[in-house]
């Protein structure tokens, strides 16, 4: 099996996992779901790090790829930190309600 084929296997199986997991999410948490997937899609930072940290001595286009990688890392980090923090803020609101909720 070629490497591309293995990647495709992983992709298809991950789609099934996503399908199963996301249908289980309660509708009241759909906004946190979006912000959390927002944070998680910051995983693109892995690609950005590989671009920015690439051994840069022997090529002419050094500067430009490092800059591209840097910008991509910055954008992905905004996503990661922004996504997780805002999700945390929202979930704290839902949490807090639990205690006062029973009496209402």
């Amino acid at each position, binding site marked *: 099996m070629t490497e*591309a084929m293995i*990647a495709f296997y992983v*992709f298809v199986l*991950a789609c099934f*996992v*996503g*399908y199963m*997991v*996301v249908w289980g*999410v*309660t*509708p*009241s*948490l*759909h906004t*946190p*779901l*979006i*912000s959390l*997937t*927002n944070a*998680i*899609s910051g*995983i693109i*930072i892995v*690609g*950005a790090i*590989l*671009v*920015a*940290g*690439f051994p840069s001595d022997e*090529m002419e*286009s050094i500067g430009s*790829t490092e800059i*591209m*990688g*840097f*910008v*991509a*890392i*910055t*954008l*992905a*980090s905004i*996503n990661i*930190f*922004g*996504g*997780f*923090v*805002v999700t945390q803020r*929202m979930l704290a609101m*839902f*949490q*807090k*309600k*639990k205690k006062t909720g*029973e009496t*209402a």
Partner: protein
Amino acid sequence: MTSQISLLYLLSGALFILGLKGLTAPASARRGNYFAMAGMALAVLATLMNSEVTSYGFIAAGIALGGGIGTLIALKIKMTAMPQLVAILHSFVGLAAVLVALGTYANRAALGTLNTTLMWELFAGILIGAITFTGSLVAFGKLQAILSPRAISFPGRHVLNGALFLCMIAFGVDFVAHESILSLAMMTLLALTLGAMLVMAIGGADMPVVVSMLNSYSGWAAAATGFTLHNHLLIITGAIVGFSGAILSYIMSRAMNRSIVNVIFGGFGAQSADDAMEGIVGDKTVKAAAIDDAVFMMENASNVIVVPGYGMAVAQAQLALSGLLEALADKDVNLHFAIHPVAGRMPGHMNVLLAEADVPYENVIEMDEINPRFSGTDVVLVVGANDVTNPAAKSDESSPIFGMPILEVDRAKQIFVIKRSMKPGYSGVDNHLYYSENCSMIFGDAKEVCEGLVSKLKAA
């Protein structure tokens, strides 16, 4: 790649899945968020262990800068502005995907390790990333009211988009076949244009679908990048995010009784509201009521349901409604909130706004669960919602919204609708509810009316 790194990536992917699984219930949700954070930290650490990563300066600077900006925005953002935040974050993922693809191309070209499969994968990565980027920017502009929220539609739009798409594919094929930088640039430009065109044509009121759809795209962009880098973690994560957004788009479209294709290509919001309005408003009359009438009915009720819509958020009435819950609880009246899936501007938006205003989530109930309860409800208060309460969706086959699932408020004993004027909702359809025997209108600003209700209830 060493097997340690691969194993760390696997662990990271598992943590992401557990993180999303946590959102099954509010009680486990925070733990889920921590799982996902741990997964992300592991993924970054594992990547830094990669022998291909040799310089760390730019990486550290990028993380520090982005982390600072992201945290600051996340702490400051108002909950009413969540849709905008989400849209702009989607655009960042799209742009990052484009940059990573271009950077990977430059690096591999310098090493001379380009091959056809990789070129196709890069093509796909840039295409999806670019469409996500500009599409999300336009969505952000509409949500932030920088751009007109109306659907911009013109004759021949589909033909033009089709032509753009074909040109883009042609340049892509040329890029793969001849490694032409010019074709790469042209293809990227066309993909950017196409992304903007597609979202431009979708009306502001379809935003719950657009936000979900772009959420999905950002996932596919990450997955495509995973293919170019042969990185299974990116593929797994991208696929899960992609499916998450796709499922939400499906749920939202279904709640409007439309197909996703119809939302994306239909330009529904462009339909002139005036046409649909004409002829219906004429002869029927509505009953107006004063705040005192509603107070009287509510304090003598045993069950009250509030139906909030985006108008509640615009008027910032959620705190007053939270006060209403307290005031009624003191009089042993049960108050619940009924949520239609497309209420607000993104999935679950109303739930977050009510949670922020200290409404316990047990009192906030989804459409399918609350619909059977309306017939046993004494008073329904509609705050800033319109189309989702229109009984014409059930009874009038000629209505444009016929077949759309609604909150069946017309079955309640008495309905009060807080509204500024008799303007119809975004669909431009007149609401039959307003003319029914058991419905009265309270004209005014949602926040002021709700505050009035609370103070009079407390005094009564």
